[in-house]
């Protein structure tokens, strides 16, 4: 142990992945996973704010019951586009394509993802899908709801269904390629000594996410393709006039789109596992249970799509099976929550911003998950499906879960990504504002839904107004809260304090190289001889690019 003091931390190397090359071309043609992560970061932030603008319009419209701000056709387009942009262009790529892209190779001690060119291609495909979708929105928009239910979408809607569908179809391949890259990388490129059970839980959750991406996305791709052809050719397999079954579309659509919810929330669970362990300096309680629960969620997630069809004349027996499986899929999530909580027992908790997001995540995800049981339960779902209860529930999962994890992760790894610290005070303030705003927005919607307010309503009976006013007030706070990190993170890129290699004093591989890392991540391929989350006093964690045990033996 004494030997450590003999080593001075080497001065941070001037060359890193950001300044290794200059010029637009060096970014647009980069094969470095870290640069591609930044390209994604910029793009999804752009889409996030477009989606946010739509959310703002929805909330303003619903402030009064009459439906006086927007016309109903406009409103229908607004909520459809809010859903499409947020789900396909923000939530699904959010953590995997940015934090995952940046960190999966670093956390396993690899120099890059297995297929760097495929990785770059996935970003271009994402952008192409985005451009097509934006074109469709500007040309006239789409009003089918993000679910594209037939026969409305195939025969009755007069909007840009085909163009939007094409955008989503193209975008799907970017997520397939990302998933493929992660799976191959995690299988074949782990550093010597990095066994499966030494992997950070972030990696496990990304592995599970990738499984869903490669198994589910192609199904929605072919479904949307058939839908688009059906619209163009005026014939097809979903058309009831020809003996086709519109419900088949819903089965195929939800076969992907339910697991897609886990694409959004699993990576976030991975981030939260990291945050909980690292900010309490405690190894995760029941590591293997948390790791395997991710896989269980990925597998079970594919067997529950039918719970979206409890009221569509599906047979009552099918309903029972899907209900049972939906309850079953809740168990692994519960296991995670209990293990995270138990991790904090006799730990050393710091109150840094990322930890605040992680704690917020656990609370909100618990509410989101528990209210999911109301919808997995058959009798209550009959009443609650397609009401604001559903809207509130999935926002608790997607915003309270996925987005909280994303923001927490972004703050946590910001020093590594940008080489700068974010302002801690502002960070905590924003986390608090977002938490309050979020709850104020969506808690009232549970009540409105239970009282019977249907979703996707442009005007509504006046007795629901009180809930909508509360919701809109909350959304204003939430929107304001979102702007704060956007501003200070950009600010910090230029004016923030320089980050050390390991500002949080943590054992993970990504902290054992300089901030920002060099292009190949590590000077030498690391050899891992420690378990995941093995903490040591800060001064030992300071040492850059070298490992505790080596020094001890030296």
């Amino acid at each position: 142990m004494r030997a450590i003091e003999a080593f001075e931390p080497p001065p941070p190397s001037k060359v890193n992945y950001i300044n290794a090359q200059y010029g637009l071309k060096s970014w647009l043609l980069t094969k470095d996973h870290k640069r591609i992560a930044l390209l994604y970061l910029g793009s999804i932030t752009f889409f996030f704010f477009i989606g946010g603008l739509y959310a703002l319009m929805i909330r303003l419209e619903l402030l009064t019951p009459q439906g006086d701000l927007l016309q109903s056709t406009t409103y229908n387009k607004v909520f459809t586009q809010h859903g499409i942009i947020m789900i396909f262009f923000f939530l699904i790529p959010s953590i995997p394509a940015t934090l995952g892209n940046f960190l999966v190779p670093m956390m396993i001690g690899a120099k890059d993802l297995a297929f760097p060119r495929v990785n770059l291609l996935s970003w271009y495909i994402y952008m192409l899908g985005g451009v097509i979708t934006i074109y469709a929105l500007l040309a006239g928009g789409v009003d089918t709801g993000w679910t594209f239910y037939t026969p409305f979408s195939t025969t009755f809607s007069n909007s840009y269904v085909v163009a939007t569908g094409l955008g989503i179809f193209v975008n799907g391949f970017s997520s397939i390629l990302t998933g493929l890259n992660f799976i191959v990388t995690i299988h074949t490129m782990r550093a010597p000594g990095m066994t499966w059970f030494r992997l950070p839980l972030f990696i496990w959750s990304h592995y599970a996410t990738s499984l869903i991406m490669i198994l589910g996305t192609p199904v929605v791709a072919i479904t949307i393709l058939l839908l688009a052809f059906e619209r163009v050719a005026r014939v097809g397999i979903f058309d009831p006039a020809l003996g086709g079954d519109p419900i088949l579309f819903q089965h195929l659509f939800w076969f992907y789109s339910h697991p897609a919810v886990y694409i959004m929330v699993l990576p976030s669970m991975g981030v939260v596992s990291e945050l909980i362990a690292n900010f309490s300096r405690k190894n995760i309680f029941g590591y293997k249970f948390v790791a395997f629960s991710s896989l269980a969620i990925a597998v079970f997630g594919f067997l529950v799509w039918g719970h979206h069809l409890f009221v569509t004349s599906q047979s009552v027996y099918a309903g029972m099976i899907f209900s049972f499986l939906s309850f079953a899929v809740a168990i692994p999530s519960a296991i995670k929550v209990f293990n995270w909580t138990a991790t904090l027992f006799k730990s050393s908790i710091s109150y840094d911003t990322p930890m605040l997001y992680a704690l917020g995540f656990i609370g909100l995800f618990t509410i989101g998950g528990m209210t999911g049981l109301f919808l997995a339960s058959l009798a209550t779902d009959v009443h609650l499906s397609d009401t604001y209860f559903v809207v509130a529930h999935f926002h608790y999962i997607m915003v309270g879960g996925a987005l909280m994890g994303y923001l927490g992760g972004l703050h946590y790894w910001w020093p590594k990504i940008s080489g700068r610290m974010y302002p801690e005070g502002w960070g905590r303030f924003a986390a608090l504002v977002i938490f309050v705003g979020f709850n104020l927005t969506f808690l009232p919607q549970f009540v409105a839904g239970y009282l019977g307010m249907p979703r996707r309503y442009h005007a509504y009976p006046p007795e629901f107004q009180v809930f909508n006013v509360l919701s809109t007030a909350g959304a204003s706070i939430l929107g304001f809260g979102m702007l704060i990190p956007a501003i200070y993170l950009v600010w910090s890129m230029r004016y923030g304090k320089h980050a050390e290699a390991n500002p949080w004093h943590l054992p993970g591989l990504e902290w054992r190289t300089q901030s920002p890392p060099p292009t190949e991540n590590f000077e030498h391929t690391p050899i891992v001889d420690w378990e995941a989350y093995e903490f040591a006093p800060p001064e030992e964690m300071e040492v850059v690019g070298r490992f505790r045990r080596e020094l001890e033996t030296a």
Partner: protein
Amino acid sequence: MQSWIPLVPESASTVSSKVDAIYFYLSGVTLFFTLLISAILVFFVVRYRRRSPYEIPRPIAGSHKLETLWTIIPFVIAMTIFGWSARVYFEQYRPPQNAMEVYVVGKQWMWKIQHSTGQREINELHVPVGRKIKLIMTTEDVIHDFFVPAFRMKADVVPGKYTTEWFEATKTGTYHLFCAEYCGMNHSGMIGQVIVMEPREFDNWLTGNLSNTTPAVAGQQLFQSLGCVSCHGANGEGGRGPTLAGLYGKQTRLAGGETVVADESYLRESILNPQAKLVEGFGPIMPTFQGQVSEDQVMQLLAFIKSLQVTNPQQSAPAASPTSTRATTQATPRPNPK
């Protein structure tokens, strides 16, 4: 609007209190676990806050006992909800035998409703309190959903087939009717009222809106004018086509050897697309009526075919003809359509 903020919707059907009971149980479970987790979190966060930058807590690997415990407890709780809820769901979706039937056709953006006594309504449904009502529903265009929050009931209305929904109102009053499946431009305008009345008032309402053609009578007229009589016989006794009298609800053998239950959806399909499921022993000679009859008219034909099975002095009594050599229906008790 009430002066206080309501937290529970009005409860006006036989199932609504059962659904509410599950809802409250679930709310209790949710509240309990949310508060439990939050309380533990807050306690840990305060109790185990970092006191010095040098402290390294002792690692704890985990505990199989605890893992088992918190796998089994949530699972058991989940199963209680599942079982309870599934039972109520069966009740919600299995229509009772002796219900009063009402025909509902959804179309962008209105509900067209016809009582079996002939009265028509749009976006309004008058029903008597304390009577089981069964809605037989379809749509002319896209998917809609007939949702009455006060009854805790909803069911999708799907083009190309019939769906059913039933309820028994327990309280008189006027309740919201919503379309709960997004159906295009004026989705939020596809709303209406369900008016639950005392049986006597309902009878008054019926006579006040007297209609001289019940769906069954209208169906009988269609049966004549569309030429169905020439093959199926004036009273559905059969001929070149299969017997219709007494057909509804029975098991029917098809050409392929399978059997189907002659429920609403089967009859509808056989009118619109006769070749799809041919009755054993009959050739594909019936023309399709797709595009020639509206959804309303199909429902009227259906009402007529149904009326053929019971002896009804007003409809010239159906000759449920066992004499027909090609009788293809087997008299089995009517199973549940679902």
